[in-house]
């Protein structure tokens, strides 16, 4: 009796496993292979995300645990009427749009200049990639040192010659955000150039040569052939940079801390302040979720466009 009780399920199990069809077994194998990645994504991506949404529905401060209370969308409603939040959102959008625009235009120009594959261009490409390799936080500190009005290497002369506010570029409401945009452009244009250069190198040369043989002017070739064919690459660069620029934090944090006033306060700076200075987890989660939502919408739109143009390009 004891024997049969212990062996029966075992036999059944084997029978069950053997009874699987090939397709089912294949499916199980694939799931098993993907399991580590799946666990990782669930554990480190989805779980914190859901927890973040959950927290954002609470008035929850780590330093005032007694006050914790479920408030539904209270945090979001508060943010809607919060002038700091409005300013942060506008600053983030202005920062992202202007930085990414200039990076694309300049990056495209550099990519075109370096299109021909020769030794000189390869050396140039290596050199211009240097800024990309530096940590944004360090870039911020370097520029802060350079641009100080009273004894910065560049800032001193800018102030002396009247090219900047006497208080310095970072201390003026009018120039602080533009300066941060400039730093972002300095650092990330090379990356955009690299992506676009890869796109250019993959272009079918026969079409371009045919157009040239037919007597089309370079500008016309660029407008009618190069640019349309390059659209997927452009959109790819646009997507990567937009997502990245939207969560700008390091360079702002070390240069202006969001100031002067609130002139350079961005969503991430605001969220970090609420979360890690005040330990206001509810509100910080809500700000981060708004930022995430904005990024998701932009990314979805851009990826949709990439797919669209990819399909169009492949059918042409």
């Amino acid at each position: 009796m004891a024997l049969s009780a212990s062996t029966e399920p075992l036999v059944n199990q084997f029978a069950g496993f053997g009874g699987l069809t090939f397709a089912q077994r294949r499916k199980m194998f694939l799931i098993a292979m993907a399991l580590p990645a799946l666990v990782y994504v669930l554990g480190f991506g989805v779980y914190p995300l859901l927890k973040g949404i959950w927290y954002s529905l609470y008035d929850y401060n780590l330093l005032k645990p007694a006050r914790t209370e479920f408030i539904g969308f209270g945090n979001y409603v508060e943010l809607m009427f919060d002038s700091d939040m409005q300013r942060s959102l506008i600053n983030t959008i202005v920062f992202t749009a202007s930085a990414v625009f200039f990076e694309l235009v300049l990056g495209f120009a550099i990519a075109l200049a370096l299109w021909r594959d020769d030794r000189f261009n390869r050396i140039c490409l290596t050199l211009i990639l240097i800024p990309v390799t530096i940590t944004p936080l360090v870039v911020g500190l370097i520029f802060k040192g350079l641009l100080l009005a009273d004894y910065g290497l560049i800032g001193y002369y800018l102030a002396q010659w009247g090219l900047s506010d006497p208080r310095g570029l970072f201390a003026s409401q009018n120039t602080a955000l533009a300066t941060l945009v400039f730093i972002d452009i300095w650092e990330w244009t090379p990356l955009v150039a690299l992506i676009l250069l890869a796109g250019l190198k993959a272009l079918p040369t026969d079409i371009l040569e045919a157009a040239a043989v037919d007597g089309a002017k370079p500008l016309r070739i660029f407008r009618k052939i190069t640019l349309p064919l390059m659209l997927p690459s452009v959109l790819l660069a646009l997507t990567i940079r937009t997502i990245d620029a939207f969560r700008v934090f390091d360079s702002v944090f070390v240069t202006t801390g969001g100031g002067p006033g609130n002139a350079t306060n961005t969503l991430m700076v605001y969220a970090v302040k609420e979360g890690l200075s005040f330990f206001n987890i509810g509100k910080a989660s809500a700000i981060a979720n708004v930022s995430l939502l904005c990024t998701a919408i932009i990314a979805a739109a851009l990826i949709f466009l990439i797919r669209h143009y990819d399909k169009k390009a492949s059918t042409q």
Partner: protein
Amino acid sequence: MARIKGNIKILSTVCLMAVASAGVGHAQDKPFEGVTLNLASMNDQFSTVLVEMAPEFKEATGAEVKVDILDYGSLLTKTTADFVGNTGGYDLITMDIVWAGQYAQNDFTVDLKDLIERDKAELGTDDIYPKLMDALGNYEGKQVAYPFAGYANVLAYRKDLFEAAGLDVPKTMEELVDAAYKLTDPSKNQYGFVANGQKGPAVAQDWMQYNAEMGGSILDEDGKPALNSEANVKSLEVYRDLFKKAAPPGAADYDWGGREESFRQGIAATMQTWSVGAPGYFNPEISKVVDTVGLALAPRGEGLPELYGIGGWGLAINADINDKQKEAAWAFIKWITSPDVHKAFNMKGAGSYIRKSVVADPELNAKYPFLPLLDTAFEKGDGDYRPRIPEYPEIQDILGTAVNSVLVGDEEPKAALDKAQDAAVKVF
């Protein structure tokens, strides 16, 4: 000469080690053998000295002290996470005096009252300035930390410039403001005044100090925020004008580092600062004002009671650790604040004073001639000009934005403080 000095150093170290090992070796009295204490330390002048002296504590008690040196933001974030998660990662924590309210409200750290009572004879608390005992760890009756590094607001000024202009060292705020304007000459890149202007804690803390000295106050008598009181608005107007007309133009973007640098570079004629930075002015490697710098007590508005801003750090014991760790941590606090060790600590440049006997020590006075100022400031100290309440971080942030907007010309003092007051009321 340098070699002789080096040899003497080695010799004296060897002697000291011999004496130390002889003392404890015979006694076989290492009650905390095998215990490791993790100390979260603010990156301040005392932090490297703590690292240097930790082996001596191990020699004496057997406990190893690992010092984790953190910047202000990381220290606050990491230790708060440790407290809130009850993870007991740090045994000892350096506590900024303005965190006392939060610590007390949440019982993050051990209330040291009973331990102090128990070891009264050994501690010699009579020798510790009562104002520091209170400000560096006592909050509404709970002793959440033990005083460890007391700082005072002092006025650093340029003796040569004051002499050349025929001015006396300012004793009142009115005299200081007057001197600041008189000593400003942009054509010579010389300014009469400098303070922190950068948005955030930097500008908030410096302004709170000036504000207190001019008779303003952040809270009213009932402990409720009164940011837009008449006195505060008036003091902010004076502060803004000083920035506009008497400070280096870039000062609106200075934090502590930029401010100190501008003084050491000789651009500013006066600067109010923490006493802990003072040794830097006398160091020729980083300072151009070694021979011309003078230090004085922080000035006070005409007719106001004699009070001096004090701040600094307490040492706190994490409430989440086990009793043995707690005892070892308490032993470390007793050891580092004991008269002889604390003197050695300061001889190595820690800049952290709490004991009357150490402040009066002739050897230390020979090395740091400004110590008598600290004695006066600690006797008549005011540790509450930055309110040590649980809501302090929010108040500081609100002021940090408001005052900075005024300094960069974005808002008028009254309007900015009205707005700040509205925001502050919501926090309470």
